[in-house]
Structures are given as structure tokens and as C-alpha cells.
């Protein structure tokens, strides 16, 4: 892999057991690009959460639908696109997991973790193409774990 400029794509069916495959690829890309073990782990965690959301909330566990993930490394920045084939959802409706009324809820922390471990997290809804999640990470800091604090 070229650590300076690379484009990698992976398409999976909507099965939870496929999540780890995408996570492992994400971590490997980060390691090749120079992130330390902790930083690579947390990017992998964010990818895990994004793919899990795409499978569960986007494609609603329909194994006929796919999840498309692309990784682009360029100029010390990593851009990750995760797109599903579902109906789309409004991320603004996701409750704040740190709110006292939500802290004991059993769900609703995935997007929070993504935002914690990545520099940028955005959602878009291309017409008829499900939800697209875009996450970006500056690899030049070489210190992913420290940014969660």
C-alpha cells in the first residue's frame, strides 16, 4: 500500500459477521499510513460503528442489500465513505447519550463514538441511494487516541 495516496474499496452484504473485515482493513490502512496502534484502533472502532449502523439502521438487516466502504488516503488525510442501500435516517433524531435522561439507555452511542474518534463525521442522503456517512481523520497528528480526551 502506498501510504501517501491510496484508494481502497470494499463491498459487503448486510451481515454483522462482515463488520470485522472492514474494521481490520481500516486499521491496516491507518497503520500503513503511519498512525500508531491506538490511533489505528480507534479509527477501526469508528468504522465498525459506521458499518454496523449501515447494516442495522440503514439496510435493516436485509442481506440482499450491501454496504459500500471506500478509504482514500491523500496528503496525510484519511477519508472514509460508508454507504448503505436503505431508506436513510435523520441523525439529528439521535439523542445525546451524555444527557442524564439517556445515559442508562442501551443504545444510541455509535455516532457519539464515531465523532469522538474521528476529526469529522457527516451524513448525506443521495437520492435513492440510502445514507452516506463520511468520516475524516488527519493522519499527520499520528496521535488518534489523544484526541478523544
Amino acid at each position, binding site marked *: 500500500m502506498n501510504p501517501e495516496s491510496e484508494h481502497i474499496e470494499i463491498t459487503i452484504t448486510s451481515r454483522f459477521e462482515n463488520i470485522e473485515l472492514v474494521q481490520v482493513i481500516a486499521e491496516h490502512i491507518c497503520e500503513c499510513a503511519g498512525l500508531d496502534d491506538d490511533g489505528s484502533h480507534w479509527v477501526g472502532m469508528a468504522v*465498525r460503528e459506521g458499518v*454496523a449502523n449501515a447494516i442495522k439502521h440503514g439496510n435493516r438487516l436485509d442481506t440482499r442489500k450491501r454496504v459500500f466502504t471506500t478509504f482514500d488516503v491523500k496528503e496525510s488525510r484519511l477519508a472514509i465513505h460508508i454507504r448503505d442501500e436503505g431508506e436513510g435516517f435523520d441523525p439529528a433524531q439521535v439523542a445525546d447519550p*451524555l444527557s442524564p435522561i439517556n445515559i442508562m*439507555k442501551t443504545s444510541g452511542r455509535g455516532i457519539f463514538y464515531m465523532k469522538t474518534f474521528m476529526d469529522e463525521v457527516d451524513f448525506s442522503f443521495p437520492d435513492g441511494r440510502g445514507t452516506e456517512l463520511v468520516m475524516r481523520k488527519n493522519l499527520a497528528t499520528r496521535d488518534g*487516541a489523544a484526541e478523544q480526551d
Partner: protein
Amino acid sequence: MKTTSRNVDGIEILSLQGKITIGSGDVQLRDLIAQCMSDGKNNILLDMSGVSTIDSSGIGELVGSFTTVTNRGGRLKLLHLPGKVTDLLQVTQLITVFEVHDDEAKAVASFK
């Protein structure tokens, strides 16, 4: 996820090994706690030292387990929390919810 259980001084110690993630260990953990409640084992110490990976679903199940046990009048505490699990509990402020121990004997004694 693999689990082993043993009872020390009336405290059920559940050792969790492997992944607690969506579609995998999360449901197992829920079933495990339900079985303990069914068996009347309401004081539970979860040994997390063997947990290799946990995600938001796994964290959610820990919260759900805590609520289930507490609502039954029992107590659920955590033992040997791996660093990255600690990180995930800290950023979501859940570390203040759970009682976490590093020493099994002291953890068992804390139920008295």
C-alpha cells in the same frame, strides 16, 4: 464470546472472553445475565480481563445488564477492566455508573 462462571462467597463471578459486539457477544451477555436472575444469583462480578473487543452494542448490553440486576435488587460490578473498555466507558461518562475493581478478593468483599 466464551464465558466461565464460579461462585465465591455467594458472589457469581462471570469471566467473559472474546468479543462483546453487535450480533455476537451482546446477546450472549444478555442471556447470561437473564439466566443468573432466573437462578437467583443477583450479586454478579463481571471479570472483563478476557474481553478483546467491545463496541457500542456491547457497552449498551453492559448498561442493560446493570439495570436488569439493579431492578432485581442485586448488584453488578466490573473486575479487571481492559484499558480500551475503560476509555469507552469514560467518554460516555458511564465509568461513574459502574463500580470497577482491580482486585478480585476486594471486589468480592465489597458486596458484603
